[in-house]
C-alpha cells in the first residue's frame, strides 16, 4: 500500500519513467482546520490515475481536473480551496478550512 509521501513521490518518478504525463500537487498553505498537512502530495497522471491526498477526499476531483491542464500545457498553477463553515458540507472542505495547492508537471 502506498501510504507515505515517500512512496507517492517514488510512484511519480516511476510513472514518468514509463512515459506517462505526470503532475504533482502539493499542499503549500493551510488556514483553519485542514485535513492534510502542508507538504502532503497528490500525484496524477494523464489518464486521471492518482495516488496520495491533499484534502482527504474533499477537493481531489477539482485538483485532478486542473492537473490534467497542467500536464497538457506545463504551466504550474496555484489553486485555493475553502468555504465558510455553514456551507462546508455542500461544497469543498467539510471541516471549513482553506488550503492552497501547488500543481506542477514532472518534465
Amino acid at each position, binding site marked *: 500500500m502506498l501510504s507515505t509521501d*515517500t512512496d507517492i*513521490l*517514488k510512484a*511519480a*518518478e516511476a510513472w*514518468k*519513467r514509463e512515459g506517462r504525463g505526470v503532475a*504533482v500537487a*502539493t499542499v*503549500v*498553505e493551510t488556514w483553519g482546520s485542514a485535513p492534510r*498537512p*502542508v*507538504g502532503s502530495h497528490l500525484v496524477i497522471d494523464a489518464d486521471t490515475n492518482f495516488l496520495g491526498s491533499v484534502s482527504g477526499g474533499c477537493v481531489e476531483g477539482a485538483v485532478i481536473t486542473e492537473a490534467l491542464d497542467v500536464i497538457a500545457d506545463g*504551466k*504550474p498553477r*496555484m489553486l485555493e480551496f475553502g468555504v465558510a463553515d455553514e456551507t462546508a458540507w455542500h461544497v469543498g472542505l467539510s471541516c471549513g478550512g482553506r488550503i492552497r495547492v*501547488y500543481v*506542477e*508537471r*514532472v*518534465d
Partner: protein
Amino acid sequence: MRLSLLADLNTERAARRAAILVTDVASGEQRLVREAQVAGDPLAQELRERIRAGKSGLVEQGDRQFFLTVQTPPVRMVVIGAVHISQALAPMARGVDFDVTIIDPRTAFATPERFPDVPVRAEWPDTILPEIGIDRYTAVVALTHDPKIDDPALAAALRSECFYIGALGSRKTHERRVQRLTASGFTETDLARIHAPIGLDIGAVSPAEIAVSVLAEIVATLRKERRRSA
C-alpha cells in the same frame, strides 16, 4: 519539476538523508538542497530550522516566496533488550511514527510472541548494529541492565552520530558503566551523551510509565537539542 530533481529527492530519502526541495512559487524554478549543502544556501538559516522540525512550508525572502518541501528520514529507535519496558515502549514508539527494532541475543526474550508488531533480532548488538547502521536520525536505548549486552551497544552508539543514547540503571550503576567505558577509551565528553538514568524525571514506577518517560525524553531531544546545536 524536473524528473532528475524528483529522482534525486527520492535517492536522498532512500539513503536516509534529509533534503529540501526549494520551489520559487512565482516562477516555478526549483533546486534540491541536500542536508550537507544547507550551510551554503541563501536560505540556510530557514532550511536548518525546517530540517530540525521536519516541516514543509512557505518562506519569504525579499519579495520572493518559496515553498520548501522537507524530506527527513523516519526516526528510528533501536532498543537493546527484549525486556518488559521494551514491550511497553515499542508500541508507543510506533504510535509516534518511529521505526522500531528490538535487539537481544537472549533467544528466550527476543521472540515474536513477545513483540508481535516489531522486528526482533536475536543477536549480539556488536554483530547486528553495523548491519542496521546507526545514523543521526536514530535513538539507541539500552535496557537490559546487563553490561555484556548493553556496553557494546553503547560503544557503537557513542561512535555514531545518533541523536539520542539512553541507558537504564541507577546513578551507581551508571558510575560503574562510565568507568568501564572510560577504560575502553571513551572520553568524558563522549560519555556525557548518555542519558542515564534514562528518561524524564516524571516519577515513573511501572514499566509502561518508564516507557513514557523514555519516549518523552527522546522526542524532547529530537525536537529541542538539535535546535540548540544548530
